[in-house]
């Protein structure tokens, strides 16, 4: 994967100088005889990159510092549309969740009459399930049992009654933690037998980072930009067959709804993927953290688990799968709580025993995150006091996101040189940008990948921080950026306008 983009020499030198200075201040002058050097360290770690928090973000943070220090710029604030962080962009938390969590944090508040009865009941139930009735006690490594039961019930309800076993649920520190755990388990073999993991291009760079870290082989399958980023079985097959030459493909990752592309897979597509996984004996990893973020007409979220079981025992008894969900996205946006889970299907019992060993190393997932997850899978019911407010807040968040998704697609498509697929779901837009040849040449001169050059310019000129498409992967010769649709509507309109103006300026400059 062409994930290598170079940082400008200036930036690199700057960063290195800062690091060196401070290191030297602590270290003294001698650097001889270090145990841990670039040569001796784990070579896999050197290959890890994570664009979402990468160099462009570091520059954005630097600019923010400069603004704070009073340096004059063409803008007064940096808009960080790089990371899928809803609260950072002003989205409000769900009142019910925060009330229950406050009571869990400080149980003396159970006496406070200002909290509704259902909030108190939930807090009490959660506290009773905690050691010493405190969210500060360890839970079991797999997660608090009654919460796993609630998660299982939620999955059953969501999937039209298809049973879910709490023993197959593993709570985690955000979905990322669970994803990495499964990969740690599955990646093995040496040389030509090294595990190959199929991932979409474009992808969420946690996958490429984790695969690099684990020394797994990344197998890219291209989503079809001309068809709304749809997944093509023929393309999966092509990628798989090519990969068989040099590795042992065993895992197929799919993000639905997609990140960065936002596409919501059709039911047929999901069936085709499952069939493909069975034929080719692949372990399916279904990243479904955006399952509530579906906006486009005619689009619907279908869980892989549901489709799998509806395909009958021939599939549901054999296909091995892990589905992931989290409290960071959807309408909750509670990234900072690090709540999440995975449901594993058809895992070999011996392998499950090893999985328990693996999750026990980090003791347990954060208990507040577990508590939050419990509330998410078990929200207020129509007959409960908090229901009305809860539904109002939830609907407001999701409808605002849907509106912003439409607005974004609409405005970007009015800009010559920007083409934007419909944002069917998730929280991002990944438009294709046409760059003049002169701009591409200039980027090369500076040692930058063209879309990084573009994004850096946008950052410096307009204070808008996006992530270049190269951080996610894209077809050779195409350029993109990923922008979140999270800024408040008014601000988003301004951002879209500014990007439009920037793009025209940029195109003009390099014509």
């Amino acid at each position: 994967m062409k994930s290598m983009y170079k940082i400008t020499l200036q930036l690199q030198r700057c960063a290195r100088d800062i690091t060196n200075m401070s290191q030297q201040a602590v270290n003294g002058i001698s650097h001889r005889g270090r145990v841990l050097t670039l040569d001796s360290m784990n070579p896999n770690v050197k290959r890890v990159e994570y664009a979402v928090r990468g160099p462009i973000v570091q520059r954005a943070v630097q600019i923010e510092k400069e603004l704070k220090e009073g340096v004059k710029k063409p803008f007064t604030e940096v808009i960080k549309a790089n990371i899928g962080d809803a609260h950072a962009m002003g989205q409000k938390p769900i009142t019910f969740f925060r009330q229950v969590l406050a009571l869990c944090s400080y149980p003396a508040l159970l006496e406070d009459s200002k909290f509704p009865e259902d909030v108190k009941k939930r807090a009490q139930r959660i506290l009773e399930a905690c050691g010493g009735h405190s969210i500060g006690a360890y839970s079991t490594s797999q997660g608090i049992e009654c919460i796993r039961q609630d998660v299982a019930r939620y999955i059953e309800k969501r999937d039209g009654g298809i049973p879910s076993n709490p023993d197959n649920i593993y709570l985690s520190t955000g979905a990322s933690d669970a994803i990495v755990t499964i990969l740690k388990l599955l990646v093995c073999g040496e040389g030509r037998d090294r595990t190959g993991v199929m991932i979409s291009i474009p992808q969420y760079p946690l996958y490429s980072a984790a695969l690099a870290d684990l020394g797994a082989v990344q197998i890219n399958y291209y989503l079809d930009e001309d068809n709304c980023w749809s997944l093509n079985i023929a393309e999966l097959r092509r990628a798989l067959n090519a990969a068989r030459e040099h590795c042992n493909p065993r895992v197929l990752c799919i993000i639905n709804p997609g990140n960065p592309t936002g596409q919501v897979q059709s039911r047929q597509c999901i069936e085709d993927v499952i069939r493909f996984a069975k034929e080719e004996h692949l372990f399916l990893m279904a990243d479904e953290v955006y399952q509530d973020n579906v906006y486009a007409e005619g689009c619907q979220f279908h869980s892989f688990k549901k489709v799998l079981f509806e395909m009958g025992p021939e599939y549901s008894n054999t296909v091995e799968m892990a589905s992931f969900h989290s409290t960071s996205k959807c309408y909750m946006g509670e990234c900072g709580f690090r709540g999440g889970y995975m449901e594993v299907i058809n895992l070999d019992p011996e392998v499950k025993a090893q999985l328990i060993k693996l999750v026990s190393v980090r003791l347990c997932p954060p208990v507040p995150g577990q508590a939050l997850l419990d509330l998410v899978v078990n929200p207020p019911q129509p007959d409960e006091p908090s229901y009305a407010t809860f539904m109002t807040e939830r609907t407001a968040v999701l409808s605002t996101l849907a509106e912003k998704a439409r607005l974004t697609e609409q405005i970007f498509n009015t800009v010559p040189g920007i083409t934007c697929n419909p944002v069917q779901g998730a929280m991002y837009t990944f438009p294709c940008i046409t760059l003049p040849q002169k701009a591409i040449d200039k980027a090369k001169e500076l040692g930058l990948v063209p879309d990084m050059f573009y994004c850096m310019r946008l950052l410096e000129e307009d204070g808008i921080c996006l992530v270049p498409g190269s951080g996610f992967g894209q077809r050779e010769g195409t350029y993109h950026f990923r922008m979140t649709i999270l800024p408040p509507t008014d601000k988003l309109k301004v951002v879209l306008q500014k990007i439009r103006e920037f793009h025209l300026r940029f195109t003009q400059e390099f014509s």
Partner: protein
Amino acid sequence: MAARGLDLILHGAQVKLCDKLKDINSNMWNMKQLEYGALARRANRIKDELRQGVRKPYKEVIDVFQGDLHGAGMKPLTFVRQVLAACVYPPLINSNNLPLDVRQRAQEELGRCVGGSVGSYSAAAGIPEIVHSISEFIKRRDGGIPSHPENIYISPGSQWSISNILNVLVNREASPRTGVLIPVPFYNKTVLSITQLGAVTVPYYLSEEQGWALQVDELQRALESAKGVCNPVALYVINPGNPAGYVQSQKSVQEVIRFAWEKRLFLLVDELYQDCVYGENCEFVSYKRTLSEMGPPFSGTVELASFHSVSKGFLGECGLRAGYVELVNLDPAVMKHIHTLSSKDSCTPILGQIALDLMTDPPKPGDPSYPLYKQEIEHIRAVLVHNVKRVHEVINSLPGFSCPPLEGGLFAFPRLNLTPKAIQKAKELGLQPDTFYCTRLLEEGGVFTGPGWEYGQKEGTYHIRFCIAAPQDVMEELLRRLSSFHMTFMKDFS
């Protein structure tokens, strides 16, 4: 001499690919089988049975298996929980029911969160102001020796940090394999991490006769034993100890640092129990401070990673999952990669980060919350000091049971002198002798402890580990049950 339970069972051949995926990371099989898993499951089942009203010789299980203060009944600090609640639900900041300094502090913490919400991500290394707070805390603790924020990384618990640093250290492509020196007895989670990453553990034995002292001769022997087996790159130290309750003297810390310098070893130092020191004439001195005070050539060259967390000490907030590592003398180029590595992990839970801030920057005299805070801290300390004394008294009064004075940490690790009959019975049941003892203690006495085998011990010796941070009445009940069970057990197998 191989330590019990440390023999690596190399699962050489991959299990044949049949219907279900059995081929997994071979290191998984190498990770020590969690024998206590059966014990833990039994403990949970007994707890369930008691909840359902099944009659047993006890009304509840005293669970002192983990270093879990709240789980054992110790109370969280009021100030910490009030601030967290107000951060989670900001309308509480306007509530007159909370002290002024709590409300101000919550406001301050929220001001540092992006978008003013604890639901946002933070910078990967941690909220910058909190990282700064930690560096100030370290500086104060270490008599003014500077600590630089860019060398500090907050993580979801110390084990997360430790495994990240190990991940950077362990070169899986290297031959011979990377080795890490580990103390025996050890903290089993770290050792699981080491094995999971494909490194080799090189045990060095702490001297039980000398109150679990760390002897440089033994470090030397261990290092020599590694020749031809692996390439040792790191030395893992736990101070104060876990499970053994020692606190290293400054001299001992200096010796270890000198050894690491001479033999070119990266120092990994777990200092989670730095607030848990009880022994007379015992004092916690950090490796960072000692290293710095030793001056050149040591201070500028020995690579050190020190770990701390909110899980132990007075906070006991294990469930919040927050800790940090301070890295000293690392190669700047390597630091850059550590930064990238931590960025893919998103960030540490914000509530945990706030708890870290409250731990490193607690209420001060004059603050409205200070009197209660001080009272709670002193109470916890008094309970621990009392428990430590009682445990020592009671254990040493029982035949076939002994333990040195507990200088620090949160565990007792007494030695069991099991009779040949007991050992034989254990063998018949396919259990390690101390697991057998712990199983019986759980079933008959309703006390859940950990077998020494889990933590490593000299061949032919047996121990149990249990947490001593429990309310005094719980500890008394524990000791009563333990004494009664032990006498019966010794008699049954005499």
